[in-house]
């Protein structure tokens, strides 16, 4: 059950061009920084990225947009990225915007082995176009399909050699869901310990969903909107 690999480069070595990736994080919070850098070094192209956001111009998935490695983004909100906007308007980048809860629940469905879900989000809007609508208890719901992801890449706070993961504060966000949905799941962690050192009661995501794990380094953890209040 030892799933440890020694570097980000080793973890992503077999991700081919045109793969469908899932990437954890919300904004720049809890993103797999080391793996994104490794994908840029490897130069993998034509990627479809399922991720709530698309990073900013010079960090996160935004870096892979600069190097033209992304063919398609599936996200709920992509508002902070000028290069993204340029590629979208020029037709270089394909974008599928979907409601945030729908994104989360389509990932959950994949990890729970369910082919589809019903959600009321988007009923009566352009999101509903071409989708089956079903009425339950006098309310309309859209049929939304579970995602199929080739490689999922997530960031956790602590992990063990079996791939069990613990996340920290709001950096949990999409990470366990992305992890559950991947055929192959790669986890990078700030702290990697031998199996048995983490309290089983404290595990957020069991290692059965994780195939490769490595200790990341040099985390920048950039803040998008630094908001503070004055000390009294």
């Amino acid at each position, binding site marked *: 059950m030892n799933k440890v690999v020694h570097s980000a480069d080793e973890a992503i070595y077999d991700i081919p061009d045109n793969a469908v990736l899932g990437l954890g994080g919300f904004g720049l919070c809890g993103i797999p920084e080391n793996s994104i850098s490794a994908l840029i070094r490897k130069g993998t192209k034509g990627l479809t990225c399922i991720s709530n956001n698309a990073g900013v111009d010079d960090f996160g998935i935004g870096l892979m947009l600069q190097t033209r490695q992304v063919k398609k983004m599936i996200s709920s*909100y992509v508002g902070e990225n000028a290069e993204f906007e340029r590629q979208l308007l020029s037709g270089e980048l394909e974008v599928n915007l979907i409601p945030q809860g729908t994104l*989360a629940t389509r990932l959950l469905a994949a990890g729970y082995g369910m082919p589809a879900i019903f959600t009321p989000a988007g*009923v009566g809007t352009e999101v509903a176009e071409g989708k089956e609508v079903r009425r339950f208890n006098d309310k309309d719901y859209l049929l939304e399909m579970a995602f199929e992801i080739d490689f999922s890449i997530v960031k956790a706070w602590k992990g063990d050699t079996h791939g069990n993961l613990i996340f920290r504060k709001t950096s949990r966000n999409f990470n366990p869901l992305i992890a559950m949905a991947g055929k192959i799941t790669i986890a990078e962690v700030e702290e990697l310990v031998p199996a048995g050192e983490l309290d089983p009661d404290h595990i957020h995501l069991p290692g059965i969903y994780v195939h490769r794990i490595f200790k990341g380094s040099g985390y920048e953890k950039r803040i998008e909107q630094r908001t503070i209040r004055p000390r009294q």
Partner: protein
Amino acid sequence: MLDKNGIAKRIAKEVKQGMYVNLGIGIPTLVANYIPLGMDVVLQSENGLLGIGPFPFDGDEDPDLINAGKQTITTVPGSSFFDSAMSFGMIRAGKVDLTILGAMEVSENGDIANWKIPGKMVKGMGGAMDLVASARNIIVAMQHVNKAGESKLLPQCELPLTGIRCVKKIVTELAVLDVLPEGGFRLLERAPGISTEQIRNATKGKLIVEGDIPEMVL
């Protein structure tokens, strides 16, 4: 006429003891500043937190602790973290009592448009479609007219919709109105110094005025 803080202050009066509340980005975020001290209210952030606290002191920012607007925040005692599926699960299941969000347009049957302006940059709907489809009570905080001076309270929305028949109440710089199930904006309160006539002139959708309309108490 109310400024943004005035709108937030008026909406804060809709927040009651014991509520779980989701505040959107912009004016709704300001509502937190006017919830009375000592009132037990838990603020939900859809990126996975119940129990949003104030912004951190300078130097205490934690990059792993942000709200849905990606701002650094703190937590209050009794808070909890969870993943995004559970976050929208509790929203969908109707556990969140009140959702306060901004809008570009609201129609007289309660439709809302707040995520897309065709031909301009499209940023995405984020969690707005999920929130408006499931919240039990939705209050919209917005300006009564847009920058071009056109009413944002319309017979029908002209922009792409975020959700249908969901807005219950609207607070603007001019008025408090509720949206009637049979259609129409019913005027409940006037902002200080604003006449019913001014509100009528700024409202393109069907405005219902019954009797004398009181001025807001802030």
